[in-house]
């Protein structure tokens, strides 16, 4: 069994392993960073710690959130660094049996396919599990994908 923290990005239900997640926060004021890659949504103040927020919609090449839509912060740890992933809304923490795991489905294309470990077949839909390290590695994965495109 695997424990996953789930969240939504538009129509997609995505998840990261709970071991990556430090906490979940409501929408936070962000300070934008001039010159940063587009996916960097800004910096947030996490109890005195300055944390870089990553817009997952931009990162996964999904359509941007509508003007007045607010985001939730999924705060994840990757090595020494703490990041916040901006998502539309938070889902439940669920346990899924390993047997339901599948490699990325063929129907999935583009950046999303590149950044997920695989999918779990749930009732009526797929749960996409993100590869946190690759998602946060803006330099290598991002540039490779754009070069291919």
């Amino acid at each position: 069994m695997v424990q996953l923290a789930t969240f939504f990005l538009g129509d997609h239900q995505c998840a990261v392993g709970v071991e990556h997640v430090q906490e979940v926060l409501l929408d936070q004021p962000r300070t934008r960073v001039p010159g940063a890659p587009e996916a960097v949504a800004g910096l947030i103040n996490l109890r005195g710690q300055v944390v870089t927020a990553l817009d997952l919609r931009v990162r996964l090449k999904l359509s941007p959130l509508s003007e007045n839509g607010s985001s939730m912060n999924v705060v994840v740890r990757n090595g020494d660094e703490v990041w916040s992933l901006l998502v539309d809304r938070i889902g439940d923490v669920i346990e899924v049996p390993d047997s339901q795991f599948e490699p990325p489905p063929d129907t999935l294309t583009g950046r999303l396919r590149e950044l997920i470990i695989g999918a779990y077949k749930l009732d009526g839909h797929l749960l996409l599990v993100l590869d946190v390290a690759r998602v946060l590695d803006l330099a290598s994965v991002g540039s490779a994908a754009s070069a291919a495109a």
Partner: protein
Amino acid sequence: MANDDLDAGLEDEIVQEFLIESYENLDQLDRDLVALEQSPGSRELLASIFRTIHTIKGTSGFLAYHRLETVTHAGESLLAKLRDGQFVMTLDTTDLLLRMVDLVRVLLGNIETSRTEGDTDVEGLTAQLRAMLAAGQSVPAPAAVEAASEIAEAATPVAPAEPAGPAVATAVATAVATAVATAVESTPAPAPTAPPTAPPTAPAAPPADKPAPAPMASTVGESSIRVDVELLEQLVRSAGELVLARNQILQRAAAVDDEILARACHRLNQVASELQEGVMRTRMQPIDQVWSKLPRVVRDLGSQLGRSVRLEMEGGDTELDRTLLEAVKDPLTHLVRNAIDHGIEPPADRRAAGKSEVGILRLRAAHEGGQVVVEVGDDGKGIDPAIIGPKAVSKGLITEARLAAMTPADILQLVFEAGFSTAATVTNVSGRGVGMDVVRTNIERIGGSIEVDSVPGRGTTWRLRIPLTLAIVPALTVLCSGERYALPQVNLLELVNLGGSKDATVARAGIEDVGGAEVYRLRGSLLPLVRLSEALSLDAVVSLNEDGEVEPGVLAVLEADGRRFGLVVDRVLDTEEIVVKPLSGIVKEIGSFAGATILGDGAVSLILDVQSLVRKMLRGVDTHDRSQLEQSVAEGSTASEEQLLVVGFGDERRVAIPLDVVTRLEEFPVENIERVGRREVVRYRGAILPLVRLSEHLGASARVDGATIPGVVYSARGRSVALAVDEIIDIVGADSAIPSDVEDFGLVGSALIKDRVTELLDVRAAILAADPMFFNHLESGELTGELTGAI
């Protein structure tokens, strides 16, 4: 089992303590030995040195480090003789003892990395030490010497030396503790020092199985304790957080009418400030820690290069943050080496110059306005701007024209440019041209600055300004395109308000455009401008102030990388002490920001990296200069001898004319000017000269005429023309003109002359405007070469 772990851990701890303590002792040894040379026979110094070596020897014997024990034992024997006045200190003795210190350092390094002494050879040096001992006098057996010394030292035994397990542990613990206490006091107190150590017969005594921590704690704990640095860093971070939280609470509480809350806030404010200050102080260490290595450097280098140098140190107790201390170590050492290599002359040269043969190298540290100022000064030959300048030109660092416009003090600062080296010959000490620029980079990286003063023949002083701490820095919060940024004040020289107006174009008053680059005239010098919004590629959001006027902006005059420039921001909001937070890699990579901070309202603000900004934005200026330089070289112009006549026109325009083409300066009476067809002529010395009014020729507005018009007469091969101007202003050297490539009709370019943008007249065109036939009588090319060669 748990006991074994404990013992292993304890042994490791003892070794660790031994290492730390020994390193400190070695630094003291270096200092003492060098000082001893100055005052040979100082019993106090010798006793101090002896004690130190004795302590190392004792503990290494106990910890079964035999090589270490062997070499220190030999050294100790020699020192005993010296201390007791049987031997006299000589240069050779000092050399040998210093080499012993080096060897001990190597051995300690081995122990630190591998917990063993490695296979470093100690026999050679030990033999030399023994030989010197034997040569000095009929030598008693080393054992006897040692015995004697131990009797001498045993005046105040700390613990009874019983060869029983627990007692040994106590003895060692006390030995370590006492040594630590001595090191902390750092005064050569004659009080209890080297305690009796384990008997030589039991150097491999197993670690005690019943550790006795109590005596150790009580001895050391009285005055000081050792604290893990990481723990301190954590405390500093926490204190920083507390300060931020306090700021937020105070801001909120101010809006609430609650007396109890207000009182609690006041208290919180006080405690937080005290805590912050206290915690910061725990990281402060005297600069002496870095300086203590320098006497040795000075001595070794001095004897290697044949210089006699006296090192004077003042203000060694000045404290600064330990991370900064670490960061200034190499730059300081470099400056000291440099002063001996390039500054202080060989004794013969000094004598010839009428100076004392012994050069003085002066280190001075002091707190000054929230910064630490460290000076490295020598009374050597100094740096001559007349040598530095041409050298910088020959290396292509600056143009000759720019050099001529520089003050001697500015020229001196060229030594910080990359690729600059003043040494005529490359030595292995310094002079590879990678010195001073690296020093400057390292100092600026920690938010400091460096400058140099020098009087040729009298000496050079390098002055470092270093912030007290890095964790909390004074900064200016500025607004640009609706975002707040923090600007470290260490780079800030002054703020200039660009003045308010409803008209955005008037708001730009004072800003001039030179070759597409904006400059600002600040008290007679031109300041290159960088707009923060452009540097960060921000959207042009026009900021309005309270009255709905276009925010004219504020010019922050900054200095970084040895260059002064103006950063244009919309508004300055506040000055505050900010806590510097690290950035994630992806944000750091952008290169515009040095960190982030959290403002009083809880918002995150980016801290501008002024050094990178200046490098990024002013690179264009450099390339520009270089292309101009290449151009003038290509034209075969030396530009050094030529002079320019600067003339003015009514609307503040200034035009320069090469003085070569000026035969005379004249005042033409207005009544002497007449029209001949479409042209004007002037009666001059019984002849009729064709005349062109340069104001008309260049499309400038002319001033209302007086009784006479100033003008320039140009004559060649019996033909003359008159060029009428509004005002004759000055004659300047062409090399003081900083060229730019702005061109217009009738001009060959423009230049910056005495801080004014000045156009360069296309003389040929102007003369032709007066007399279209003028050059027909000349050999072609005779004039053109001399005209274009001016700039």
